[in-house]
């Protein structure tokens, strides 16, 4: 990239402005339903359904979770939330926003770095789709350019079953006495 990656105008601008260069963007396809998807040139109904299903499974994992229905509605609007299948550690109910659409790779571009995932609309920015980790995506359905960090699968809460799988090779090589593994 031959240009600045960010630009800030704090003093000379009426309202402080910071913009990031839109680099490393991906072509993503965004749809609200299978009908929209399958009417897009080059998209077949089977792939549309498969990706919707993947997004719905991801929705269970990746949707923002709330312990109160009201808190969820405060962020996503009236009647925009549903109970999540999970339970809190104390056995209480958990709520999450409704999935409003899904993102998948552009089937016309072959190789794609876009993770199929659910999309949401927040109450304060309802024009735009957002990812499960609250990154703005786009307001448009169909194929559009989205920032690369948005196209990746969101980081979500999960459970760890085992740790300690790294580091044994280093210990074996050094007998445990070296202070640095850098070169």
């Amino acid at each position, binding site marked *: 990239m031959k240009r*600045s990656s960010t*630009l*800030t105008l*704090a*003093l*000379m*601008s009426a309202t402080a402005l910071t*913009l990031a260069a839109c680099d490393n963007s991906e072509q993503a396809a965004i749809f609200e339903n299978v009908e929209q998807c399958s009417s897009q040139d080059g998209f077949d109904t089977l792939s549309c359904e498969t990706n919707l299903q993947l997004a719905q499974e991801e929705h269970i994992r990746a949707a923002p979770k709330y312990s109160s229905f009201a808190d969820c509605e405060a962020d996503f609007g009236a009647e925009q939330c549903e109970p999540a299948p999970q339970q809190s550690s104390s056995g209480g109910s958990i709520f999450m926003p409704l999935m409003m659409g899904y993102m998948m790779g552009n089937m016309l571009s072959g190789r794609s770095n876009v993770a199929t995932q659910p999309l949401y609309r927040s109450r304060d920015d309802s024009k735009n789709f957002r990812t499960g980790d609250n990154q703005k995506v786009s307001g448009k359905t169909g194929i559009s350019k989205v920032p690369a960090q948005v196209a990746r699968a969101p980081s979500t809460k999960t459970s760890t079953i085992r740790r300690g799988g790294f580091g044994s090779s280093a210990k074996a090589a050094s007998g445990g006495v070296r202070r640095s593994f850098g070169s």
Partner: protein
Amino acid sequence: MQRIAIAERDDWKSQAETLGFSFHTIDGAPYWDETACYRFTMQQIEDDIEDPSGVIETMCFDVVARAINDEEVLRKLAIPETFWDYIRASWMEQDRNLYGRLDLSYDGNGPAKLLEYNADTPTSLYETGAFQWVWLEQAMEREIIPPNCDQFNSIHETMVEAFRNLGIPGPLHLAACKGVDEDEGTVRYIEECAAQAGLKTNFLYLEDIGIDDAGRLTDMDDMTITTLFKLYPWEWVMRDEFGLALPKSGAKVIEPPWRAILSNKGLLPLLWEMFEGHPNLLPAYFADDPRANDLTGGYVRKPLLSREGSNIEMVRPGEETLSVDGPYGAEGSIIQALHPLPVFEGNHTVIGSWLVASKPCGMGIREDNSPITKDSSRFLPHVILD
């Protein structure tokens, strides 16, 4: 290199107002013009603009190193003798330069030719480094241009980095003349960059600078000025009352005094003398040099010290001579071989290649209806797209 007509962003004027770009229109005529953009390949940018700009900068330093110890050269450049030691000292102490703009004639093919070096008080930094950058991001987002465009423009980042490295102790005072919107806008932007580098800054008008009984410059709060950025040419400083006091004021100035050698059109014959035949240089001579008569293919006469296209005379074989009036020229002039600007859709196009702390880092394009560009020449954005 192509000129491509494109749609304007419908809200660019209101954005310009919000973002501190008040001089986007000059006397009712467009200055910022996004009804078209120029497209370059990455190879054109890197091989023909970026790398040669670095090479030219190096040659320029060789000229300075020679000139500061050559009284005949300093005299030819019409630099007042009282300032010779001051200029020499600033070079020997390696006072750091901040920014400059090389004006190049380039049409997409062959080597770019250096027309002049604005090494002292260049403007159009803000529109190149900031507003052009915003245009690119928004034009891609709004699908005015393809989404994978780039731009030769890391000016903003490089300016902030340069201010971090300049080692300026205490506050940086920045000054422009009162009532000159474009200059004030440029200085406000430079202040913006300095502040983002963590410097304490203080803008004031040049006319408001004071002096104390010890000969130190002072600001509006009677604080002494230790480092001064001035958007005001050295040749004028050297004639002003406070300018005469400057060498003993203890203040460091940006650009440093030695830049006066480079912002002088006498640089061009000095470069040609030292690096005759270099592909990025045009033959050039001081006007009283008999070799100037050898330039039979047309020439341009430029006063040693002139600004924004004033007092330029263009003599073209078989065509009428063009000239622009102005107040300059008393100190003498130089003759440079004619290398007309390329014409795109009837527009004469000049490339401004920016160096920040001597690093080539960006480009701005100006267009004029006439073969001689002026301060009113329109600014057009550019993209890199292979």
